[in-house]
């Protein structure tokens, strides 16, 4: 198992190299960051001086090599927007906020989709199924920002049950978590329904029924764990969607995580920060996938990582 984890971590290296290259190229061919740094009243001499200071006059590949060398020493560059603070620090500071948002979103998604998916599968083609399925389809058909704004309007402004935005109050995380988790919840419900239906057709379920087990025992003991595989697969695949969804959700709820930071950084061409966010979120996504893979072997004894 440990070997497997090490192996998977080693595999991340070329992927990360690819990620850095893509982002680097994209941002270097973009506009001149110096102008954005200096603001509307900049003098030409100032612009030149800063360009030189940042090494922006060197060829691209040299800038990339410089960048990679810095990365290896833990230097992700300095934020333009935040007066030259280390980008890594700027981003890491925001990580807990996004992590708690994503965790809540995931929690909501699981808490909603588990019962909904089970009910939909068991009552296939009956009312409960139709209701659960309709909600899950609606959840997928509704853009995140739209849902977020509606939730604010209904549950925060009109009913006053939850804070409108921010992250300081204990209930602050509810609405953004729900917003972020809705799409995943919908997808997981659909996935759980269809994989449960598929599992319920398996021979071993027939065996379980032939043993005289009750329907609930069959589902809880025999079906769910097998359906959990595709359920986990979706969670793994959607890890990056969760990070992406955080961008929109954080914008709507003024949630000070890395999604909001990303928008600000892209808008102000804060390249170091954008690169750091992309690299860091790739690491997060890959780590989530790794965790999912490890969970696979917990759920399914057939999978062994040796």
């Amino acid at each position, binding site marked *: 198992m440990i070997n497997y984890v090490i192996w998977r971590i080693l595999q991340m290296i070329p992927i990360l190299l690819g990620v850095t290259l893509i982002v680097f190229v*994209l941002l270097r061919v973009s506009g001149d960051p110096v102008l954005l740094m200096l603001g509307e009243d900049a003098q030409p001499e100032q612009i030149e001086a800063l360009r030189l200071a940042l090494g922006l006059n060197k060829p691209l590949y040299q800038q990339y090599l410089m960048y990679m060398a810095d990365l290896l020493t833990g230097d992700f560059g300095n934020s333009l927007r935040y007066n030259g603070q280390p980008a890594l620090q700027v981003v890491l500071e925001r990580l807990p906020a996004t992590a708690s948002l994503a965790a809540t979103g995931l929690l909501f998604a699981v808490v909603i989709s588990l019962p909904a998916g089970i009910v939909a599968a068991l009552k296939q083609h009956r009312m409960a199924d139709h209701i659960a399925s309709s909600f899950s389809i609606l959840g997928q*058909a509704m853009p995140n*920002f739209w849902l977020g704004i509606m939730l604010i309007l209904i549950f925060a402004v009109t009913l006053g049950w939850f804070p409108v935005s921010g992250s300081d109050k204990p209930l602050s995380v509810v609405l953004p978590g729900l917003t972020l988790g809705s799409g995943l919840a919908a997808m997981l419900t659909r996935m759980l329904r269809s994989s449960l239906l598929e599992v319920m057709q398996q021979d071993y379920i027939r065996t379980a029924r032939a043993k005289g087990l009750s329907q609930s025992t069959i589902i809880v003991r025999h079906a769910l764990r097998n359906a959990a595989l595709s359920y986990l697969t979706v969670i*793994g695949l959607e890890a*990056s969607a969760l990070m992406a969804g955080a*961008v*929109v959700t954080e914008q709507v709820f003024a949630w000070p995580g890395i999604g909001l930071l990303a*928008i600000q950084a892209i808008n102000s061409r804060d390249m170091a920060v954008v690169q750091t966010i992309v690299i860091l*979120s790739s690491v997060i996504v890959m780590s989530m996938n790794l965790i999912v893979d490890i969970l*696979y072997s917990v759920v399914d004894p057939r999978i062994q990582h040796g």
Partner: protein
Amino acid sequence: MADTETLPGLSPPLVVPARRLHLSPLAAFGLAMLTIFVLMAVLAPLLAPYDPTTPNLRARLVPPMWVAKGSADHILGTDHLGRDMLSRLIYGSRIALSVGFLGVVLASFIGVSVGLIAGFWRGPVDSILMGAVNILLAIPNTLLYLTVLAVFGQSLLLMIIVIGCINWTTFARVVRGEVLSLKEREFIEASRSIGQHPVVTLLRHVLPNVLGPIIVIATLNVAALIILEASLSFLGFGVQPPTVTWGRMLADGRNYIATAWWLAAIPGLMITTLTLSLIFIGDWLRDRLDPRNAS
């Protein structure tokens, strides 16, 4: 390691002739709505009562005709610049559909090619192509879209190209998985054993048998892309005006939710309807194309 190459529920190739494709009511609804949307897009200049981009400063924020203060001049009302909502919706369908469909066509072309090649030949080609897939999968897509659109500007064509170039990974993964399982099937081996050229085998026997999952993914993907366009517009990176898009209408309408609900509600309803239609069609295709359901 778990086989995550195939999406559960999509995997087995399909054996269904057209005449067995019974329509479910939901699928019929989906197909009917899709047809209407396509007709709307094609016939936009004939159908739209007004120019979608011309403000009418005297008729701003007119509510839909069935609401108090509504007017029969503007069936679905007007927006904050007095532009006819119905006309904008009709024209907007063009962008929604072209972003969705062209984006998916491009994405599926890239993804299917990559998946076929990687799955069929394996080896270093596979490693490199799947490396690229893993790189793209590791980066949260929205970040990538935003960065690329921020860098290169926001034209419709560019958006479609960007979507195509980023969004193909699902296709590649699924197709590769399908190809890997198809390769184990004896008819592929049979094709080899008669001395068929591998490329011909790939195109004649492998490709048609992965079309089912591709169609299903593509359908659901179109829906996802329409929502993506709306989200990008929300973040200020959408297709630029005066081009009318549902996503942009929805994103702009968000500021009027409390005061002029129809600005957001109507495009929202359109997006939801189109997405639902596509999901219905996709689900139906998935059920139909699954050989386990074919009998």
